[in-house]
């Protein structure tokens, strides 16, 4: 299947994808951000029907009030489909895809540690990649988290206004 044929098939299957999925260049298909429900439907379809058997990783992004998750899938022709979903920071719940794609386990754990995503159904296991004792509620890949306010000795985050700023030596 060519890139355009995949896009056409996706649009045919899902009305909500019209004008939201496009061929960026040869071997690259991108989507705009989908919501949790739409995303799940599309993932099931590309996995079961379109043969996107490989999930390389998930890129977490900070989208202001939301968190963005860009999933990189590919098929046997080496075509990459970047499927995106968004969740509000106030309720950053997404579903795990590790049942379909076990290769996403570490990447989903990373979303939990670095972005504060709540990945529903993620199997138990050691955290990744932050160390034990990392202060709760600190998600370093969010744009509002600044490394200069983090005190490595006490492992505390002291932004201006908390009265502890300048503690970092």
């Amino acid at each position, binding site marked *: 299947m060519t890139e355009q044929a995949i896009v056409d098939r996706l649009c045919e299957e899902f009305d909500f994808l019209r004008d939201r999925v496009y061929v960026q260049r040869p071997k690259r298909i991108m989507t705009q951000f989908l919501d949790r429900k739409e995303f799940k439907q599309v993932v099931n379809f590309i996995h079961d029907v379109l043969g996107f058997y490989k999930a390389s990783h998930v890129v977490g992004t900070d989208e202001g009030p939301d968190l963005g998750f860009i999933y990189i899938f590919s098929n046997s022709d080496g075509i990459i489909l970047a499927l995106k979903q968004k969740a509000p920071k106030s309720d950053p719940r997404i579903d795990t895809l590790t049942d379909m794609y076990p290769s996403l386990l570490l990447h989903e754990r990373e979303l939990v540690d670095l972005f504060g995503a709540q990945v529903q159904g993620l199997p138990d296991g*050691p955290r990744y990649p932050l160390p034990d004792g990392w202060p709760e509620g600190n998600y370093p890949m969010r744009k509002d988290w600044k490394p200069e306010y983090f005190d490595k000795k006490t492992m505390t985050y002291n932004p201006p206004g908390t009265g502890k700023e300048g503690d970092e030596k």
Partner: protein
Amino acid sequence: MSDKTDTGKNRVVIPIGPQHPSLKEPGCFIITLEGEKVVDAVVGIGYNHRGLEKTCESRTYIQDLYIIERVCGICSHTHSTAYCQGIEELAGIKIPPRAAYIRVIVAELERLHSHLLWLGVAAHEIGFDTMFMYTWRDREKVLDILAEVCGNRVNYGINTIGGVRRDLDDYMLDSIQKTADVLEDQIKYYLDLAQNEPTLEARLSGIGKLSKEDAIKFGAVGPVARAAGIPDDIRVIEPYAAYGEIPVNPVTDTHADVFGRTIVRIKEMLESINIIRFCIKNLPAGEIAVKAPRRIPAGEVISRTEAPRGENIHYIRSNGTDKPDRVRVRAPSEANWHGMNHMLKGQYLADVPITIAAIDPCYSCTDRAIVLASENGTNVTGWQELRQYSIEWYKKRGIDVASVKIPDKKIIMNM
């Protein structure tokens, strides 16, 4: 610790790491044993997380190039290539053909030294230290060439946004050619050894099994996937740099175990030598770089390269400024960890180190320095002097290294 399971069998849990026997980098493996057999393994990594992606967001594109180059001490070129070609795509830059060829030459030299390093580590893990010393000796030849071409043994710094930073002159091309000739003989010898030495096959066969189906399921990449019969190679799937003009034959194997991974890596080295020879013969003349803008237009790009360890993916999002909005690096080792639990289960405890080593974990050998000038009075010891010193050192203690006879004359000649 040990406990009794429902089946009445005694289980012992052994935490190995973070400092552990096969990697020179930290990783923690909680191994559950029944007798000598591994029944479960939990992989704990992340000890080396350095926050490079966050750092990239607060620096300019060109500053980030130096950070990205340091993602990995062994395959730094593949990361800088993926990063540079991503930025070039965002900026709409086409690099000169000569630069594309130079990127390929350095990439294949990097693959050679990485695979030679791995072959030595693997040999060491199974107690075959003679092979470890031979392969690491040969690896030095590649590193010397890389130092000559790039100025550094590792972290080559050859890439820049828009091309490469250094040109190759005839003398360098001749050096590369001569080294390739010597290495080819050696690598053929290793292939012969791997295929015909019964103890090597007996030690590695059936260890760390990952079938084709499981390799697909766990997203294995590079030699781990190719040893299971999956011919995925980004140099062929999506040719980058000059790979579109160069014949590349992905090496596959069907053993799907550590033995297969060994064969694949050795054959890949021969393939790399062919590619290097092709590049030298067909190296286009002309410029080596074009000017790149400081500010990169807003957009997003997914850039891929075939690292020595497999598919390397960079995601870069720009926002129109001189700093990226997001840089995400998916190194190949990150993909290969997912199948580790499956590979370890059912193995003997003694096979754990070689199974872990067989996905080719990285470690950086940046300690050694090459000092090219001694005008300031610095005491400089060159390679030959260092070698002579070590021979004298052993002689004083009654060991004459020069008198040791090695049966295979071909190897002595190549030393």
